């Protein structure tokens, strides 16, 4: 019984971490203020 409880705790923790990670996701950021270029850049 205690072994089952330990396994359940491990599984729940893994699910919690993955669900939190995916729910937070990555920030969108903002549109770059840099222009669409009409001159040839010297370097990348």
């Amino acid at each position: 019984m205690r072994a089952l409880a330990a396994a359940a705790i491990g599984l729940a923790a893994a699910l919690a971490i993955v669900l939190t990670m995916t729910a937070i996701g990555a920030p969108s950021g903002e549109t770059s203020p840099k222009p669409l270029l009409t001159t040839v850049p010297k370097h990348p």
Partner: protein
Amino acid sequence: MRRRASLVLLAFAVFFAALAPLLRWYAYPRLAKIPPSEYQTAVLEAGPATLLDYGTMRPRKVSKVTIVQTLRGNVPAAEKAGKATGRDVVVWDALSYMAGPDGKMVSKIPERYVFDAHSQDPVHAGGEHVDGDAVRRDGIEFKWPFLTEKRDYRYFDAQTRTSAPIHYKGTQTFRGLKVYYFEQTIPWTKVPLPKTMPVKGVTPETVRKAGTSRWYSTKRMFWVEPTTGAPVNGQEIHREELRGGTLLGDRDRVTVFSGHVKMREDFIRHTVDMVKSQRQLVLLLTAYLPWGFLILGMALLALALLLEARGRAARPPSAPAEPTPLSVAGRSV
């Protein structure tokens, strides 16, 4: 004590063993995506090339033609399209700017590409265009999906405004990276004239009225790093002609542009370096962490079972229970 330790180890074993598939098949498809605020430039050159001199309407050889391609993620437009479609959407506003050897504009084609941030499939949420003409893509453009497969894809051609197969032609090594080589050939096709012409006074309307049309053909080559789906090199053997009408005098066609367009060396180096680092992030979620966690989980499970077995072996066999004297009201009977 051993029993408690084996239970803790078991909990960690299940934690890591469960994390492995969850990361690979649940987290990875949701976390691996193109950020909506991406900004990228690429410079391509064709040298020597043939370019039409609009003054004399005769093609001439030039030392170099440069194409500057800029991609800029439009975050507000992506959020709007995301809300409308319920998907994670990226909107790229792009400009392909071609300059002659004197730096003057040869052509300028803006476009908007709306696509799914995870799969790179086109999303039709309105606003897609090439040079102001509304388009409906059914193929990828600029980038392949993460974990690119060894198969043909449909690739959007901005000049013809249509999608056509781009063929997987084999695996190669490019600057130390394993890449998939793709090739697409667009046969001679009548295409729209650019809205912005390189000479003042000449508009698409005046060219059309003269009965002249623009034709184009290209062989497009991409070397794609398959983990990220990012092209690390691109080339085009590009040809454009004006055909028919009174503008060309007694000729039935003139070359507008002809050249072998290649990515500039410093941009290739920059792209390869960037892709090499991005590749590690994708591999972390698809291979390194899932396999590492699975192996760790199995090792911890083995350790937990070993501890439990030793704990049981060390425990003294339980003695037969002695008859307990009955006690009635605190007195032994």
